[in-house]
Each structure stands twice: as C-alpha cells, then as structure tokens.
C-alpha cells in the first residue's frame, strides 16, 4: 500500500514529463492516451527496482523514452483504455490557445526527426546537460554533441523550408 502511495506521488509530481514525451511521439489523442498509459504501466513495473541511484526524473525519462520508441513501432493500441483527459490545453482561453499553437509548431518542427533524435532534442529542451543526455540514452557525450549539431542544422533547414 505504501509502495502504491509512493508511486502515485512520484507520477503526480512528474506527470508533465510523461505528457511532453507523449506529445513529442504521437499525433492523435487516442495514440497519446495509449502511450501515456503504457508509460505509467512500465514505470510501475520498474518502480520497485528504482533504488534512487539516479534522479527520479532521469529514471522517468529513460523508461518513458524506451517505452515510446518501442511502443510506437508496434502501431497497434493495447486493448481497453482508461478514460481520462489527456490534453492540457483547451482552445477556450487566449493563453491556452497560444500554448496550443506553440505546441503544434514545436510538434511540426520536430516531427520529421528520427525517433532517436526526437528523444535527444527533448532532453536538450528539458535543460539536460550532454552528460545527462548521454547517461539516459547510452550514447557518448561527444556523440550527443555531434548529433545535436546535426539536429540544429536539420531544424533550421526545416524552418526555412516552411517559410
């Protein structure tokens, strides 16, 4: 019981991380909900083995990214869904409308990156250092640097093409 309470507290404190990863990897609301639930389930499965060697957020990013990349490849939703509201923004307020537009813009820019590059750019946007990105992804720090330089060029070109 205590374990369940600890787990729900951790998820609630970091649910924004899951939402951002899901938004990065899925287009439709249903796919987002499916991936969201899968990530929560995978986090639950590994919660007991999480010993606090790394930060909670590092553990969450690692599991959530691994889940996203393997899950989107299955292209098949996993049975019954729990009904819940996935979207954080509605179009009724001006602030939400602007956040929604920004989210769409980011999504469009990042959509053409590969699954690996998406994960790396997400961690970069989340203010992770190259060393932390390397720890989560398993690539070397220098490799992350090279990949980031390539990603920057890709995004710049994509934005220029969209103009």
């Amino acid at each position: 019981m205590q374990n369940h309470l600890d787990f729900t507290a951790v998820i609630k404190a970091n649910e924004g991380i899951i939402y951002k990863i899901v938004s990065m990897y899925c287009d439709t609301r249903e796919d987002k909900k499916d991936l969201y639930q899968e990530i929560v389930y995978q986090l639950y499965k590994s919660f007991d083995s999480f010993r606090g060697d790394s930060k909670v957020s590092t553990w969450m990013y690692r599991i959530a990214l691994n889940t996203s990349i393997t899950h989107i490849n299955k292209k098949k939703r996993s049975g019954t869904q729990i009904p819940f509201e996935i979207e954080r923004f509605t179009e009724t307020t001006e602030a939400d409308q602007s956040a929604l537009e920004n989210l769409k813009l980011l999504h469009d820019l990042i959509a053409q990156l590969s699954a690996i590059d998406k994960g790396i750019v997400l961690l970069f946007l989340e203010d992770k250092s190259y060393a932390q990105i390397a720890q989560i992804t398993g690539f070397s720090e220098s490799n992350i640097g090279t990949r980031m330089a390539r990603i920057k060029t890709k995004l710049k070109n994509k934005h220029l093409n969209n103009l």
Partner: protein
Amino acid sequence: MELNEIKSLWNEMSEKIEAQEVLTNSLIMEMTQQRYKNTFSSLKFYETIGGIICLIAGFALLFNLDRLDTWYLLTSGIICVVYLIGLPLITLNSIWRMSKLNILNKNLKQTLTDFYKRKRQMLLIQQLGIAFNFLLVIVSLPVIVKISNGKDLFLEPAQMYWYVPGMFLFLAVASRAGYRCYKRIAASAQKTLEELEG
C-alpha cells in the same frame, strides 16, 4: 527557427504543463491495472491460434505417417510434419522474444539495438515461412489425399494439374504483398540500427 528559440517556447509551454495536475491516485492505479490485464489479452492472438492449429495438424500427421507407404509420400509427409511443427514453434518463439524485450534496465541505445535486432530476426523467419509455403503446397495435397482416402496422387496426378498452379498463383500474389511489406519494415529497422552506430 534556431534551437534557442524553440527552447524558450518549450520552457514557456513546460511551465504551463507542469502547473496542471490531471491525474489522481485512483486514475494512476487504474491505468496500471488495466494495462496489466491488456498485456495478457493482447498477446498475439491470431499468431498463437494459427500456431496451435499448425501444431495440432502436425502431430495428427505425425501419428499417421505409417499410412504413407511409398518413399516419396513418406518424404512429403516428413516435410509437412517438420513444417507444421517446426515453423510455428520458431515463429511463436520470435514473437515471444519481441514481447519480452526488457526496456526497464537499459538505456535508449541498448533498448533500440535489441528491439531492431529481434525485429529483423522475426522478419527473416516470416520471410522463410513464405518460401516454405510454396514447398508445402506441392507436398501437402498428396499426403492429405493418401491419408484421407488412400489415393496416391503422384500416380494419378490429374487433380494436381489445377491445384498446384492455382495455389502457386494465390501464394505468389499473397507473398508479393507480404514480402514488400517485410522489406520496407526490415529496411527501416536496418536504417535505425545504422543510425545507432553513427
């Protein structure tokens, strides 16, 4: 747009997202329980059923091999048994290995490498299955006819004249579509593996 501009947009959005709490304790636990049930209900249902049917047919044939009284019928029977028992076991094993991929203790690079290697292996087995289907078309009918009504189709091949070309045509059309699909998936898996090395 520069990455720094994207980052400032991202930070602005993150603040809004993190200020919201959507999940409740009960919702989180419901999600994990439902997904746990789904893991069992969404096991590769059709592949498993197909595999079980093949295994039953394979064993039924195995226990009737003594009714195949010539060397060529016996050879055909053995090929059918090996196919019907062997291939489903290999296929189900590869599917099981895919579903048992451990993503909890590995980093992104290790997870992806394992995932795509297993996927490529599974595709290779499925492609082999397509090739063996053509062999099965030729050898299965004489075996079935011999066991069911005692006729040797190799001595009276009239029925084979329409059956073999018809089945070959059907298999060729079905296999072509399947093969192109496998080729595309395998190419995408290979590209990702190469990207992991880069």
